[in-house]
């Protein structure tokens, strides 16, 4: 590692640690991990059973992650994607392949503390083999400016009896512009849960288009969205579940709290072409629940403090 890359790596790792990342794991040879700053792979570590390959491509980085057949990882794979400069574009194309009966959890920290005009584009293909389980947790740490565009796209195919769960959370800072595009196709008895939690303020704009396609018999999927919007923030959420397989079960659940001049549109879409499939939805947009508010105020919290507790719970 040359001095410049080392310096960049150390700065990013410092942010990673302050964002709650497990630095020990990131630096340990026992954990599979990868650190990317901008379009530069600063570090990566494979283990015997989790192989990470990464290379620079014309407009960004391409990474391939393979979890070997039957390997059930006790340690999560730690990913750190960041961009420390105020401006720039990060493009990461990943392919994840969890082979048959393997199990793995990814914890991805996405760090953009100084963003004024930053684009973070993730383009992922995930293949979950028969009986394999993949959890992908993406936690974002943004700066106060809201100058970040986050554009994550995932196409996941889950084999028979497999599982793919994904969580997207913005833990701190302004959300900025977020445009989520996820689609998961489930085989027989496969399962999936897509969870998104975002707190948007200022003039943040959040778009989320998430689909679970229940192709296999007895497959099941849930799309759960929780958002809180303040000021002039806007959201457009589409949660789609399509029941194709017999006895497949799908549910879309969206709750959004809006305050001030914020606006929210939630469109749960349920479709089925198999009479034995069942797909359901619920969506609620509204101000902070009055009874929750009054209960907390009757314990001595001001209205603002009570809202913080309620929103904090919803997005926890």
């Amino acid at each position, binding site marked *: 590692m040359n001095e410049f890359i080392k310096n960049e790596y150390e700065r990013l790792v410092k942010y990673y640690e302050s964002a709650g990342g497990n630095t020990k794991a990131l630096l340990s040879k026992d954990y599979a991990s990868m650190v990317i700053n901008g379009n530069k792979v600063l570090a990566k570590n494979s283990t015997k059973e989790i192989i990470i390959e990464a290379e620079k491509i014309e407009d960004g980085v391409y990474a391939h992650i393979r979890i070997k057949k039957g390997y059930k990882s006790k340690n999560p794979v730690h990913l750190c994607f960041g961009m420390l400069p105020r401006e720039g574009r990060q493009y990461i194309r990943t392919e994840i392949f969890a082979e048959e009966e393997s199990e793995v959890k990814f914890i991805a920290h996405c760090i953009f503390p100084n963003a004024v005009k930053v684009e973070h584009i993730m383009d992922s293909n995930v293949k979950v083999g028969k009986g394999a389980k993949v959890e992908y947790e993406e936690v974002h740490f943004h700066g106060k400016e809201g100058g970040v565009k986050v554009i994550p796209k995932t196409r996941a195919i889950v084999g028979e009896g497999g599982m793919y769960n994904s969580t997207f959370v913005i833990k701190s800072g302004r959300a900025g512009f977020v445009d989520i595009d996820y689609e998961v196709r489930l085989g027989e008895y496969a399962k999936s849960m897509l969870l998104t939690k975002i707190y948007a303020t200022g003039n943040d704009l959040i778009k989320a288009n998430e689909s679970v396609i229940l192709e296999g018999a007895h497959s099941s999927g849930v799309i759960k969205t929780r958002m809180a919007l303040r000021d002039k923030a806007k959201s457009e959420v589409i949660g789609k579940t399509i029941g194709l397989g017999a006895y497949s079960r799908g549910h879309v659940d969206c709750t959004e709290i809006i305050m001030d001049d914020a606006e929210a549109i939630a469109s749960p879409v349920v479709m089925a072409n198999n009479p034995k499939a069942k797909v359901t939805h619920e969506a609620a947009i509204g101000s902070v629940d009055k009874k*929750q508010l*009054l209960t907390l*105020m*009757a*314990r*001595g*919290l001001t*209205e603002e403090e009570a809202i913080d*507790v309620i929103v*904090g719970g919803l997005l926890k």
Partner: protein
Amino acid sequence: MMLKIENLRIVREGKEILKNVNFEIAPQEIHLVLGINGSGKTTLAQAIMGIYPCEGKILFEGEDITHLSVWERARKGITLAFQEPARFEGLSVKDYLMVSAKNKSLNRLEEVIKMVGLPRNILFQEVGDNLSGGERKRVELASVLLMEPKLAILDEPDSGIDMLSCKLISEVIERMKSMGTSVMLITHSEDMINIADRATILCAGKVVASGERDEIKRLFKYSPCPLKR
């Protein structure tokens, strides 16, 4: 007096809900409010907490609090447990209790949870639909206990609760009293009625009688609401 209410009048959506209500609660007194459905008990409880604007005067420890907000009244030492407690998505029972407990230790939370007859592990569950109605009621009571208020307003803490738990809740309320808290208690349960010191009957938004518990209890049995709205 801990609480003195003078000529309290509440009009909601053009309808007069409370009409010149006057009554008092003494320090460390359990004061029962009786009344048939729709008599104005819950409105009275919520008006004391500051949820509804009203005419008249509410004096707390001699201070006029009529124009104070809900949280300002809470910080003076008044709290209210709703008849139907709120659910909080994502908030654990522990997080919820910490709102009232302020800087109290986890040990204290555990003590109070035990006191209201709940298992320790409930602290780590969400205050949501996963809890039964009875459990939510008891979590609410634990929250009131941890706040150590000067005046606790309990709106039907017994509704949806089995007989055995009802007895336990009565004991908790008596313990509150022994700790120096005055309690305004709205209930229909015979067991709970018997822990009260004094009582008031509300009928069609008016106080029709106020006095010693047994005398008011007899009166209520004989004629629960002699007035028409």
